[in-house]
Structures are given as structure tokens and as C-alpha cells.
């Protein structure tokens, strides 16, 4: 045990001595959260909207007034026909156009439903999402207000959301789960694989192997410090996203942290596996970055929704652990669901972890060659 | 013999407050095998960098192959060759490709490269290796080839950094014979090493310590002067321990 603790202490010394890496380790997630957070919170103040009111009745005027006076929006123009939409978007100030259909007020009162279109500038996905979400929320609010005193309960305004430039945009653009997913797998897998291959490269692995240290002690000793660091990183990201971005964890925090630990463990064992197949640090870095970061960003559903991918990418992404973790973390953080809804993904991660650990212990050599 | 190819007068090189070369003065002659010795960190590398035009002196006069070490570093580089133990040839290129590459770097014409290539392969009995990858050659052959490549463009001076460390005794002697042969053609061979038995092969040696040259003479006279049986003994008597 003393041997093991001595080993862990040495690993911590390596980490703290290389303060540049340490800075990156904690600096990058913080920077990402702050950049996303501020970019988003600024844009939704006074976003430009244009109104195309084909009905021009009392209700549409009231609703327009409610939207504009909410503080989130600022009216840029009043349009007269559909042709103007293209022109107004091209000018750039307008982030969304709200269109009331013909006889909006009449239909609402006589038929109990009317439709309203929101066309957002999809070239700025973040803003587009927020603008449509906010507008929808205001419209819903308006409907409830209107329904109570004036009319019967069955009226409905159905907002029809369209993206002007980027029609595939998913409405649940949530970057915090994505950042957590990416950062954890990167730090854990990259750092462990590098720290093990470094020992090989500098020849110190030879001495460790000739010592009474057991392979499992070497592996755990390498993994432990990064497990702790990664976990601190999770707490840091969650705290920041809550403080800066007001993003609370809707579901169980305990469950979330437990899932994070599982995911960290998975990433660490993946890192060890990488180190057993790469001969030097360069290879380890290459495999970790190209092999993990790119697929995580591109295929895990972090940025591009899996539903919209060609089937083949869907299959490829199904072997990527981040794909499952992103579902888990989104469910817990945003939807507030419990283990009931994510047990499948959790199980897959557990199986992956076991496979990786099994493979690395098998592949970790007690001799050279 | 007394045709000076390197002349150094009061060379000083400082890095901030640290003086790496402290007032060096020496001359090296054409066709001489000059051993440049010193402990780790004595300042050898700094001097070599200046002599090969990679670094500018802080003060003093330095002339290499007739060119000034302050203003004519590009001409200096064209007139010297360089070989070190660790790197000299590209391992993932063939023998022929390496020769063509180096010839090209030194601006030799295609026909001249071709001519030297054939000459070289014949001299080293290398024909069968022409299209072999460097990484497939035994270390001894690699070393011989590296040396031949370093003098491919007939430089005035060739710098060798620990040239024969770790090779077998026969290869080592063959290597020194090719150094002798090169020197007999008038090319100056400037050898840096901290293996003193390599120094024994040189015509003259200088020993550096703490940025200064503390001894400079033929190995034989130095051995007499210090009452020693080997250059190693001379060195140990001169150099302080590095701790």
C-alpha cells in the first residue's frame, strides 16, 4: 500500500510540476463555459424581430406588443408581404420574422386556433434557438392569458417554427453537456495515455517493471490522480454553468455525479488501452486527439443531431462512448429524468468500461516487447 | 601545412550574464585533424555553433575558411561539412536518396552528384546498398556513409561530433582511416568528443574547461608535459570534476 501511495504521490508531482498542462486542464473548460455563456446571454437582449402581420387585428396587435415589450426583442421593421422576408434577413439586424396568417384574430375566436410562423435566421444557430424559444414561450403565455377571461379554454395558437438558412437546427442546443462530455474524455484518455507512454519513452518503465510494483498498482497509480482531477473538473463546470449561465441540474445531482464518475472511469481505461497500443507519446496524442476528439465533436450528437445523419454515421457513432454519455447527461441536467430513462445508456457505458479495463490489464505487459 | 583555415582571436560568447566562451584564441590549419575536447558544459557546443555560422560571437575575431563569422555566415555554411553521431542521414530514405538530397542541399549539379555517387559507392564497396533504407544498414556502415556525405561537396572543413562512439574496433579503425584520407586531401577535420581515446588519433588537441582553452598541443607533447600515459590522464589532471 505504501508503494502504491508513493506511486500516486509521484504522479501528482508530475501533474503539478507541469503547470502549463494543468492550466490547460482547468482553463479550457472554464473558457468554454464562459465564452458560450456570455455569448448566449448577451444576444437575447434586444434581438431584432420583424413583423409581417397579414391580419392586423386587435389580437395580433396585442400579441406583437407583448413580444416587443418583453425586453428580449426589438422591432426592426413592419413587413408588408412575404417577399420582404428575404430582404430583411439579408440586412442582418433581424434575427427572426413573426408572421400572423390572414384573419388570425377571427380564426382564433371562431375556430379556437390560429397559426403563427416564426422564421429565424438559422445562420446563427444559438441566437435562432433562443429567439424561437423565447417567442414561443411568450406566445404560450399570451394564449393562457387570453383563454382564461375572454374565451373558452380550447383556443390554441400553434407557432410554426422555421429556420431560414439552416433548417436542420435542433432546438435543444445545450452546450454544457457537450463540453462536459468532450472535456472528460479528452483529459482522461489523453492524459493517462500520455503519462504511461512517457514512462516508456524515457525508459523509466523498464525500471518500474523490474521493481516489485505490480502492473495493477502501476495502472491504478496512473489513473487515480486523473480520476480526481477530472472529477474536480466536473464540479467546476457544473458550478460555472450554474453561476454564469443559470443552468441548474434538473434531475438528481447524485445520479449525475455518479454517471460522471462512470464516464471518467471509462475514459481512463480507454486511455490505458491507447497507451498499450502506442509506442510513444506522439502516437498516444495522435490517437487520443484524432481518434477521440473529432468523433466526439462530430458524431456523438454534441453539435450535429444524430437523427439527421446518414445511417452509416449513426452506426459509427454507436460505438462511441460519448454518444451515450451525452444522452445521459442531457436527460439528467435538462429534462430532469431519472435512472429509469437512461439505464440502457448507463449499462452500455458500464460494459464498455469493463471491456476496456479487461483489455488493458491483459495487454499491459509485465515485460518489454 | 601552415595554411590557416580557422582563426579565432579573443572570442567571447555570452548568454546574458553567463560566459560560455571566455576569450578563446586558436588556429587550425588546412589538412589538420584537430581534436576539440572538454567536459560536458565546458562550452564546446557554443564554439562549434559559432565556427559553423549558426551563432554570432559577442566579441572577438573569428574567421572560418576565409569568411568572417559575423557577416559571412552563409558563405561559411557552404564551405563546411557536419556530421554528428546521433543524426546525419534520414533513416527512411535510401542510400542513394540521401546522397542526392545532400548534394542538392549544397547546390551541386546533377551530373556531379551522379559522379560522386558512383565514386562513393565504389570506394565504400556500397553498390549493393544503393537502394537500401538507411535504417536497414548496420551502424558501422551508416557511420561511414554519414562521413562520406558530410564531405560530399568537398568542404574546406568538416566538423565531427563524437564520430566513433559505440562502434566495433574494426569499423572504428576503418573510419579513422577515411578521416586520415580526407585530411590528406587537404580537408580540415575538426573533431569534438569527450572520449579521450578518440583524441589520441588527432594531430593536435585542445582541452576546454569552464569556457576557456586550458591546453592546446599535440597529444604526445601534452602527455609529456603532464607526465601521463594517455590523453585521458591529461584530461583528468586538467579538468576539475563537474560536481
Amino acid at each position, binding site marked *: 500500500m*505504501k*508503494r502504491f*501511495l*508513493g*506511486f500516486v*504521490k*509521484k504522479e501528482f*508531482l*508530475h501533474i503539478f*510540476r507541469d503547470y502549463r498542462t494543468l492550466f490547460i486542464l482547468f482553463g479550457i473548460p472554464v473558457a468554454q463555459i464562459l465564452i458560450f455563456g456570455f455569448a448566449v446571454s448577451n444576444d437575447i437582449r434586444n434581438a431584432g424581430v420583424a413583423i409581417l402581420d397579414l391580419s392586423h387585428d386587435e389580437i395580433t396587435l396585442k400579441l406583437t406588443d407583448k413580444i416587443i415589450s418583453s425586453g428580449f426583442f426589438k422591432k426592426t421593421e413592419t413587413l408588408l408581404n412575404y417577399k420582404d422576408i428575404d430582404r430583411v434577413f439579408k440586412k442582418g439586424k433581424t434575427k427572426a420574422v413573426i408572421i400572423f396568417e390572414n384573419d388570425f384574430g377571427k380564426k382564433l375566436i371562431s375556430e379556437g386556433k390560429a397559426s403563427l410562423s416564426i422564421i429565424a435566421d438559422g445562420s446563427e444557430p444559438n441566437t435562432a434557438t433562443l429567439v424561437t424559444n423565447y417567442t414561443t414561450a411568450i406566445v404560450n403565455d399570451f394564449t393562457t392569458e387570453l383563454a382564461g377571461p375572454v374565451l373558452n379554454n380550447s383556443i390554441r395558437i400553434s407557432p410554426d417554427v422555421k429556420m431560414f438558412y439552416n433548417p436542420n437546427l435542433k432546438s435543444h442546443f445545450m452546450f454544457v453537456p457537450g463540453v462536459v462530455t468532450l472535456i472528460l474524455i479528452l483529459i482522461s484518455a489523453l492524459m493517462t495515455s500520455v503519462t504511461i507512454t512517457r514512462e516508456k519513452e*524515457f*525508459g*523509466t518503465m*523498464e*525500471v518500474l*517493471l*523490474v*521493481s*516489485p*510494483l505490480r502492473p495493477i498498482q502501476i495502472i491504478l497509480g496512473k489513473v487515480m490522480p486523473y480520476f480526481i482531477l477530472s472529477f474536480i473538473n466536473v464540479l467546476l463546470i457544473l458550478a460555472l454553468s450554474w453561476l454564469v449561465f443559470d443552468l441548474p441540474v434538473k434531475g438528481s445531482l447524485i445520479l449525475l455525479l455518479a454517471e460522471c464518475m462512470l464516464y471518467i472511469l471509462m475514459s481512463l481505461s480507454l486511455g490505458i488501452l491507447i497507451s498499450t497500443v502506442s509506442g510513444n507519446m506522439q502516437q498516444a496524442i495522435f490517437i487520443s486527439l484524432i481518434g477521440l476528439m473529432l468523433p466526439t465533436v462530430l458524431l456523438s450528437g454534441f453539435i450535429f443531431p444524430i437523427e439527421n445523419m446518414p445511417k452509416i454515421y449513426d452506426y459509427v457513432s454507436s460505438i462511441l462512448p460519448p454518444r451515450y454519455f451525452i444522452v445521459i447527461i442531457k436527460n439528467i441536467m435538462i429534462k430532469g429524468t431519472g435512472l429509469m430513462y437512461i439505464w440502457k445508456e448507463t449499462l452500455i457505458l458500464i460494459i464498455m468500461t469493463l471491456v476496456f479495463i479487461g483489455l488493458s490489464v491483459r495487454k499491459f505487459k509485465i*515485460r*518489454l*516487447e | 601545412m601552415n595554411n590557416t583555415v580557422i582563426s579565432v582571436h579573443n572570442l567571447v560568447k555570452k548568454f546574458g550574464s553567463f560566459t560560455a566562451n571566455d576569450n578563446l584564441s586558436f588556429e587550425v590549419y588546412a589538412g589538420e585533424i584537430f581534436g576539440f575536447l*572538454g*567536459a*560536458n*558544459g565546458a562550452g564546446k557546443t557554443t564554439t562549434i555553433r559559432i565556427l559553423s555560422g549558426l551563432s554570432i560571437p559577442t566579441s572577438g575575431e573569428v574567421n572560418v575558411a576565409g569568411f568572417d563569422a559575423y557577416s559571412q555566415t552563409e558563405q561559411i555554411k557552404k564551405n563546411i561539412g557536419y556530421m554528428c553521431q546521433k543524426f546525419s542521414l534520414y533513416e527512411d530514405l535510401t542510400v542513394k536518396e540521401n546522397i542526392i538530397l545532400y548534394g542538392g542541399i549544397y547546390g551541386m549539379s546533377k551530373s556531379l552528384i551522379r559522379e560522386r555517387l558512383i565514386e562513393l559507392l565504389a570506394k565504400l564497396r556500397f553498390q549493393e546498398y544503393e537502394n537500401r533504407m538507411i535504417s536497414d544498414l*548496420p*551502424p*558501422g556502415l551508416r557511420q561511414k556513409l554519414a562521413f562520406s556525405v558530410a564531405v560530399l561537396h568537398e568542404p574546406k572543413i568538416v566538423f565531427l561530433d563524437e564520430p566513433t*562512439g*559505440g*562502434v*566495433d*574496433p*574494426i*569499423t572504428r*579503425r576503418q573510419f*579513422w*582511416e577515411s578521416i*586520415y*584520407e580526407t*585530411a*590528406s586531401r587537404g580537408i580540415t577535420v575538426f573533431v569534438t568528443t*569527450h*572520449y*579521450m*581515446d578518440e583524441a*589520441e*588519433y588527432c594531430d593536435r588537441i585542445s582541452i576546454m574547461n569552464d569556457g576557456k582553452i586550458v591546453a592546446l598541443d*599535440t*597529444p604526445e607533447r601534452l602527455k609529456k608535459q603532464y607526465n601521463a600515459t594517455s590523453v*585521458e590522464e591529461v*584530461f*583528468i589532471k586538467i*579538468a*576539475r*570534476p*563537474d*560536481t
Partner: protein
Amino acid sequence: MLKAVESSGISKKFGPTIALDNISFSVNESEIFGFIGPDGAGKTTLFRIITTLLLPDEGEMSVLGMDSTTDYKELRKNIGYMPGRFSLYQDLSVEENLNFFATVFGTTVEENYELISDIYSHIEPFKKRLAGKLSGGMKQKLALSCALIHKPRLLILDEPTTGVDAVSRSEFWDMLGKLRKYNITIIVSTPYMDEAIRCDRVALIQNGEILSIDTPQNIKAGFSRKLFTVKSAEKYKLIKTLRKNPEILTAYPFGDSIHVTLNNNTLDNSLYEYLVREGIGDAVIMEAEAGIEDRFLELMEKDNGITNKA
């Protein structure tokens, strides 16, 4: 006498390359045993087999009375190993390196300080310095301290003097000599023939084969012919001229002279006269005692059938 290492018929291949070919030797307890040979001779591979890091393809290796293949766990506790590159943690300080290796072997620096004090005292003033910032000689001393810290019964040093200056090399061998009193068996490798003299016994190794095993004195004495040195200011001309003479068996440059052996093994005036005739008037010919390197050359010639006649 007890044997620290006993090896019989060890062979090891890497793909088509034969690294070790039927190596047999034994090392006595508490002696300094040297493997002398050039890079690529197989020294490192052999050391990795002794230290249980590699398995031989063929042959048996018993180390400290244990089988190096099956008893590797027990063996690893008793071996101190210093690989070719000083394997230190560059980003840890001198002190931290030493403490780390002590803990890994389940001991403390204090416990075995006496053993390393002589070596460690040289670098102790720099104990807060990072290992990466040490000079070659200091790295070497630290690596030796780390390899010794658990008081191993067998110390294995792979090219400990490569890349280190002459003064540090000499000090290093003095330190190994002082370790004798602790009854530690030391196996050391080096490509430098002149270091053979510092060992009790040496094995000359080349191309994966052992050419000879004996005390340095006996190895020198094994040189079968009379050896002469010839000196002249014009060395290159001298070699070429010597090689042309049919009486010369071998002529090799050795530092400032040429080492020569003769076909009839006796020196008379004819060689000097020949040299003068050929225009080398300053030739000085003397009989000399053969060194390890002369013997190595002779053995290599026998082994490969090489002659160096022009």
C-alpha cells in the same frame, strides 16, 4: 564459488535479426563483470533477459539461484537496474527521484543511506534541482543511487558511462570499486574497451556472440602474436605503405601510432629500411604490449575471417 548469474545457450531473435546467439556464461557472486562490445552487439538484450524484462527464445538463465522466467516476481525485488538511458523522472527533483524509487522498493532513503552515501554525497548539494537540469555526470550518479537504494544483491548497469565526460567516468568506476565491500554483484556493459581493466572479468561480445570471457589480464595475454607500434608524422601514408608490404599481417591505426603484426612474428631491420625506402624517414618502430582492443580485433578477425590487407 556461488554463482550470481548462470546462463546456458541463451538465444534471442527479433524477427529475422539474431540479437543473441547461444550465449553461455556465469558471473560469480560479488564480482564486477563487464560486457564489452560495440552498439548492436546484443548487450542490452542480454541485460533485459537477466532483469526478467525479456524472455529468451532458447536457453536457460538462472539469476541469484532463481529462474529468470518463472521467478520473476521474487527476482525483481533483488535486482537493481540502470537502463541505457538514465531512466530518471526529469520533472522530479533529485531528492524526489530517490525517495520515489525507495518507496517503490518498499524501503526508505535513510535505511540504506550508508550504501549510497559515497555516491549521493556528490549530488546532495543539488537535491532540490530537477533531474532534467543535471549534467550528464550528475544524472549518472543519481541513477546509480536510485538503482542501489533498495540494497539489491545484483546490480545491472547498461552502458552507465555513455555520454559522460572522462572525469565522471573515472569517478564512476571508482564508486563501483567501493561497492565491493557490500558484496553486491555488479554486471556492467560498455562499448569502451579501455574500461575493461576496471572489471574483475569481462566478456567480449560482438554480433550476439561472446568472443572471449576472462580476466582483463588474461584476455590481453591471449593476444597470439608480437605487437609493434609504428609512428610517423604522416599517418595516412604510413598505413598505406605498411599495407603494401607482404611481411605485414595486420596494420591498424591506434591513436597516434599504427599497431602492426608481422607474418613471421619477428622484427628485424628490414621493416625500417623498407619504410625509409618508401619515403618515411621519421618512422619509429617499437615492440608493445597488446591491449584489450588489440585482442578484440584479433578475435573479430578470426570470427569473421576479415583481413585488412589492402
